[in-house]
């Protein structure tokens, strides 16, 4: 039964993601809102990323943690660089939880996402540079980042919903 549910949810996800035009804007089918990412091309084709992003991330996380390999490709930090920009409409509007690429899709698909219980939800790239190099970093640190609390609550909400579904 669980497997069937999984398959079903995957099929629904694939359908809705690949054919948003099918349901259309303002249609009856609820769709996840996928914020536009920075840049033109992801590290792999979209289809590959949809299916295998978790494998790439898991492999890279072990290489980074245990061997100190810190290449940007497949790193969670690099994902957030493009998909959760520090500056821009997401941060400025304070709607991080609503506009978070990862969370939106995971909430929609009903798949628990554990990354952000520990990992930062936003990039902070400029902070690792000396202020002389990036004068913006000081300003960034001063910005309000309480939105991640909202996001965390939302993630917790996801797991509660999941438990509810399992009982039915």
């Amino acid at each position: 039964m669980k497997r069937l549910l999984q398959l079903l949810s995957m099929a629904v996800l694939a359908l809705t993601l690949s054919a948003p035009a099918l349901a259309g804007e303002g249609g009856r089918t609820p769709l996840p809102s996928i914020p536009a990412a920075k840049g033109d091309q992801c590290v792999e084709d979209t289809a590959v990323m949809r299916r295998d992003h978790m494998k790439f991330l898991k492999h890279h996380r072990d290489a980074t943690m245990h061997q100190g390999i810190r290449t940007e490709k497949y790193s969670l930090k690099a994902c957030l660089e493009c998909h959760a920009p520090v500056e821009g409409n997401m941060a400025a509007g304070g709607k991080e939880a609503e506009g978070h690429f990862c969370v939106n899709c995971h909430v929609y698909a009903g798949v628990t996402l554990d990354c952000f219980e520990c990992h930062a939800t936003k990039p902070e790239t400029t902070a690792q540079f000396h202020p002389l190099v990036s004068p913006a970093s000081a300003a960034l640190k001063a910005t309000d980042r309480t939105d991640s609390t909202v996001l965390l609550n939302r993630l917790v909400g996801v797991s509660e919903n999941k438990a509810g579904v399992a009982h039915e």
Partner: protein
Amino acid sequence: MSDHKQPDLARREFLGRGAAAAGVALAPGVMLYGVADAKPADEPVSSKVRWGMLVDTSKCSSGCNACVDACNKEHGLGNETHSRDTQRTQYIRKVELRHKFTGATHSLPVMCQHCETPPCVDVCPTGASFKRADGIVLVDRHICIGCRYCMMACPYKARSFVHEALTEQRPHTPRGKGCVESCTMCVHRVDEGRQPACVEACAADGSHAIIFGDLNDPNSEIAQRVKTYASSEIRADLGLNTGVRYQGL
């Protein structure tokens, strides 16, 4: 260079991004560039290197908390709201020692000592507590189950447990509820060829009490110093061969 009084900021920014590592100001006008020492990002760490620290206790003054503050800031520590003070995470703390007979006092920072044979790694049931090839002892939070055996095993009381859900983490230091954590020797900085935050802060403060470097490299400052001057480990009787050593204890 002398005719450039003001560095070209745009160019600096570009170079900084390209090299993924930038300079560290030791003092106004004095920059330390670690780019040359950084290993390529795609290369695994090697056991040819043994990172270590040497603390000169004669230069470490009582009441100075620069290293602790820098550490807390670097790793985004101290944002627990429900935990008691004794539960809050600390990667580094200042310890005051007084010899009962002579009355001699010492003030020294104590953090994870990055043992060669770490007891925390011995007792970890999941393999989450591990030592990197270059001698840095870490917790892999992806596999930590929060059993806290390592906290019991550590003779230096270096590890902390996160008791509550956290937000506002720094990107380079993921932290979360239910995991044990400790000093990482600023592994994210070391991999970029930079110095740990405490070392940098101590130097910026003018104390220069902590130096960081490769104990295996005979030409490094730290190797020279431990060769020339008497230094000791805390609880040397345990035979752990710590990476953090103290001079003047």
